[in-house]
């Protein structure tokens, strides 16, 4: 086989030499034969005659020899490609339109596939990522919750399904000792964390098993980014110290650049260091902000591990009913945890972009069909002079391949631009740290779809245009009525398909647009105009005691309220739409104690006076937190409407009492009296249902982390630097972070849907334009074809309007068929995107109607322009030109 191919190729490159050799070889034979006859006694004339006779057609022998050498295959291929290039160069209009169409289709596909690959397919940068499982606890009331440290220790001790298990706690630090203090985030991990993932520090050492116990010396590992930005990528950083929360940590290592985690990681510390001055890890009921990661033992499946862990959780629930009753465990592959948010959007976009490519192919196929009609005579002639059908098909396919090659390269360039542009408007964090680029896999995909496209739009028309009946074609003088009519039918079918696909995309985009507008009109329970928010976390030793913390908050409020333009300023532990809130069980006075895990579990906000005013939360009953609620005054709280309705019904909740956690019978619980009811706020994003909420005065429960909320008379962002200097004048080492206006928070909370809508919107517009071009082409060709018929009709007295109606009738049939099939297909397909929709049914009749209307209108307009030309047909000229 290999010998065969090499032989063919060698032959191809030695063409001229081989021709000469063949000539020489055959001449030698003739001479030998001639001599033989001469020596046998024939006269020269007779000898020559015989030789000539025996040899027959010399050229034919040569041709057969060439065939035998197998030159033909490669030679014809090269010839076909050369010829295709020449043909395409001669019709630049066709070539440009086809190339641009293909470039758009292939480019969009390449860009979206690189997104899909980066987010969903590229192996995560861990050893054997498929066996990595993330574990959380679950409760019937709230679903997924963080595992408590003692439970993690028991899981690890009892599991056999997992070969290794590590815990990860989210932590934050104030990084000081630099020009502008910063808040950085990180994780506190068990020392086996990195080795479990199969990651080795780029520099320095991994954590030591001894660093799992409280009392470990403060050490920290830097992310590659932090090491570059703050230590200038200096290898000597190892062994130096870094000031975190005012304490100095020794840098023991630097993470490799490809390290990725579920959240942003600037630094990693061992749990032993995290435990210092922290007692929560000893409490089985303390479920903070953590996750457990584990590696499946070899040969163990997820289901088996799930069963085992559920058994362990059930035993723990029995042993510790006070903290674990009703608590289960959930296991998710690490990839799912990374992409669960964005997977549906990526899949929808990938489906959409496939449709765009199909439409592009249909358009190019349609162009080919039309050219096929124009070239019927050429094809018939070639067949008449002996070209086989296979040869002509191969030749036409060569044109398709040259076109996809051009389109593919242009598409790649387009994809590069698109990926760069998309990076600009896809918010950071949406892609879970995935890297989107053109890589060998993506290029292979592009080559694959380009080849598929070449066949898709090339083969059909090629087969079609070679089906021509040579005799009738040549006889009819190239008017090609029979195959012309068949080609027109095929083109109409292609346009129907295009319109259907375009309608599906438009319906998808329409549904998303409606969702987005519904979502943005959801009442978040707050007024977002001119509200600026920023976070502060007091973490240094000077803020150990409550009076110091309260003093700092008092001074911040006083300073900010004194700034010109500030209408209201307040502090609170959270702002709606951020998802960053803490929840605790409460027990309402007089309620029957439910099982653990079934207690009311409201989100708890610690707030200063004016919080409700600054955010514009509606006050429904009673009062908000005031300066009168102090350390020494009776404990009070404000609840939200939902909590009031769910637990007090029609009764007035003012004056009712509750207590945090589960009170024990032996001591009087510290009752908290409800003094006000406020409207619900959307804590976890606009699409999420409202939840139970409790507000507490900041002097009665002290928090060292607060968000400053400033309602100003002027543009909110302009306030930032003024506020910054107020804070710096109180404590120059205190960082401010998470600066955002409420409007930005609203926008960010809908970013997945917004980005999906923008991209899908772009695709459906492209689809609309392409199918409009498609139907425009069909109708203008039809007008040209039927000019004779039209002329006859007009000569017989048809009014221009009648003729126009005939043409538009043809268009309406095509558009109608496309719209109907498209609507049916959309109905079936949009259900797949229902989890991207918000309060819009996937078969929303209004969207369907509106989109169908727009599509039909655009399509009919695209038909009207060429159809109008019939009005200008002059019967005399049209008939005479025959």
């Amino acid at each position, binding site marked *: 086989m290999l*010998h*065969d191919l090499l*032989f*063919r190729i060698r032959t191809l490159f030695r063409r001229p030499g081989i021709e000469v*050799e*063949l000539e*020489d*070889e*055959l001449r*030698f*034979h003739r*001479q*030998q*034969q001639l*001599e*033989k006859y001469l020596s046998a006694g024939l006269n020269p004339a007779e000898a020559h005659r015989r030789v000539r006779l*025996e*040899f*027959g*057609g010399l050229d*034919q*022998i040569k041709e*057969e*020899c060439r*065939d*035998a*050498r*197998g030159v033909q295959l490669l030679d014809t291929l090269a010839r076909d490609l050369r010829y295709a290039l020449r043909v395409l160069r001669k019709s630049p209009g066709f070539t440009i339109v086809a190339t641009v169409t293909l470039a758009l289709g292939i480019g969009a596909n390449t860009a979206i596939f690189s997104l899909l690959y980066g987010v969903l397919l590229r192996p995560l940068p861990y050893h054997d990522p498929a066996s990595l499982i993330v574990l959380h606890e679950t409760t019937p009331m709230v679903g997924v919750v963080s595992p408590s440290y003692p439970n993690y220790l028991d899981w690890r001790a009892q599991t056999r399904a997992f070969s290794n298990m590590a815990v990860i706690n989210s932590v934050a630090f104030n990084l000081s000792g630099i020009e502008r203090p910063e808040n950085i985030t990180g994780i506190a991990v068990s020392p086996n964390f990195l080795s479990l993932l199969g990651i080795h520090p780029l520099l320095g050492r991994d954590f030591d098993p001894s660093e799992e116990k409280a009392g470990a010396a403060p050490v920290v590992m830097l992310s590659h980014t932090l090491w570059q930005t703050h230590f200038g990528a200096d290898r000597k950083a190892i062994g130096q110290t870094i000031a975190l929360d005012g304490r100095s940590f020794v840098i023991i290592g630097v993470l490799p650049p490809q390290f990725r985690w579920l959240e942003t990681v600037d630094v990693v510390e061992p749990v032993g260091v995290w435990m210092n001055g922290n007692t929560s890890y000893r409490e089985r009921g303390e479920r903070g902000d953590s996750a457990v990661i584990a590696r499946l033992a070899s040969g163990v499946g997820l289901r088996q591990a799930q069963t085992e862990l559920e058994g362990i959780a059930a035993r723990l629930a029995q042993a510790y009913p006070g903290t674990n009753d009703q608590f289960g465990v959930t296991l998710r592959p690490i990839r799912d945890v990374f992409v669960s948010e964005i997977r549906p959007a990526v899949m929808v976009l990938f489906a959409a972009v496939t449709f765009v490519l199909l439409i592009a192919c249909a358009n190019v196929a349609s162009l080919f069909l039309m050219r096929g009609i124009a070239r019927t005579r050429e094809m018939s002639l070639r067949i008449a002079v002996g070209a086989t059908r296979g040869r002509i098909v191969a030749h036409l396919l060569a044109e398709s391949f040259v076109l996809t090659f051009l389109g593919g390269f242009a598409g790649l360039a387009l994809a590069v631009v698109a990926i760069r542009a998309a990076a600009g408007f896809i918010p950071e964090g949406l892609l879970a740290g995935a890297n989107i680029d053109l890589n060998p896999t993506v290029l292979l995909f592009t080559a694959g779809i380009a080849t598929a496209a070449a066949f898709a739009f090339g083969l059909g028309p090629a087969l079609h245009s070679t089906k021509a009946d040579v005799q009738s074609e040549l006889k009819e003088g190239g008017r090609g009525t029979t195959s012309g009519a068949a080609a027109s039918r095929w083109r109409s079918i292609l346009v129907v398909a295009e319109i259907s696909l375009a309608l599906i995309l438009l319906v998808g985009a329409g549904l998303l647009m409606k969702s987005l507008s519904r979502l943005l009109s959801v009442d978040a329970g707050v007024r977002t105009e001119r509200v600026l928010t920023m976070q502060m976390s007091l973490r240094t030793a000077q803020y150990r005691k409550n009076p110091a913390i309260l003093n700092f908050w008092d001074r911040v409020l006083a300073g900010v309220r004194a700034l010109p333009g500030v209408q209201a300023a307040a502090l609170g532990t959270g702002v709606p739409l951020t998802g960053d809130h803490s929840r605790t069980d409460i027990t309402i006075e007089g309620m029957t104690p439910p099982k653990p895990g079934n207690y009311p579990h409201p989100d708890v906000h610690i707030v200063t006076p004016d919080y409700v005013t600054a955010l514009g939360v509606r006050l429904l009953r009673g009062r908000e937190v005031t300066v009168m609620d102090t350390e020494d005054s009776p404990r009070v709280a404000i609840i939200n409407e939902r909590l009031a309705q769910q637990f007090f019904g029609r009764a007035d909740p003012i004056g009712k009492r509750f207590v945090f956690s589960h009170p024990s019978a032996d001591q009087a619980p510290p009752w908290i009296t409800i003094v006000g009811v406020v409207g619900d706020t959307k804590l976890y994003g606009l699409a999420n249902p409202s939840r139970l909420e409790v507000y507490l005065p900041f002097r009665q429960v002290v928090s060292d982390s607060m968000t400053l909320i400033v309602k100003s008379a002027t543009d909110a962002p302009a306030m930032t630097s003024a506020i910054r200097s107020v804070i710096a004048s109180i404590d120059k080492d205190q960082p401010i972070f998470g600066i955002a206006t409420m409007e930005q928070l609203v926008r960010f909370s809908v970013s997945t849907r917004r980005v999906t809508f923008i991209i899908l919107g772009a695709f459906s517009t492209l689809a609309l334009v392409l199918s409009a071009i498609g139907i425009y082409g069909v109708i203008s060709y039809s007008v040209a074809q039927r000019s004779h018929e039209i002329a006859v009709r007009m000569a017989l007295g048809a009014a221009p309007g009648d003729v126009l109606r005939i043409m538009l009738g043809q268009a309406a049939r095509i558009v109608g068929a496309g719209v109907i099939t498209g609507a049916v297909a959309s109905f079936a397909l949009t259900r797949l995107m229902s989890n991207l929709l918000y309060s819009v049914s996937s078969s929303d009749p209004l969207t369907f109607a509106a989109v169908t209307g727009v599509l039909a209108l655009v399509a009919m307009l695209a038909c009207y322009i060429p159809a109008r030309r019939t009005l200008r047909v002059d019967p005399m000229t049209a008939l005479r030109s025959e």
Partner: protein
Amino acid sequence: MPEQRIDLPQGTLDLLILRTLALEPQHGWGISERVQQVSSDVLCIQQGSLYPALHRLERRGWIKAHWGTSENNRRARYYELTKAGRRQLELETDTWKKMTAAVALVLGTSL
């Protein structure tokens, strides 16, 4: 000219060429002469089929060609058997023998 010439059955041409070249390297004319002589003028190879066959066998790698000088001092293209060609010859000879034996059997019974 002998009267009894037989047109070569399909597929036998390759076998004859390979067999002839098994003796010694030979040029195209030589091959056709040799076959004619050995077969006592019964088998005659048409030039029209000889040369395409030679080039096909060369492509398959069963024979290889080089330019040499003929007995009467002309430049001629000589073909010789390759190892693969020798194997192919054995194979085809075997097949041929089996076939003719089988054909002979069938003919023997019917007459």
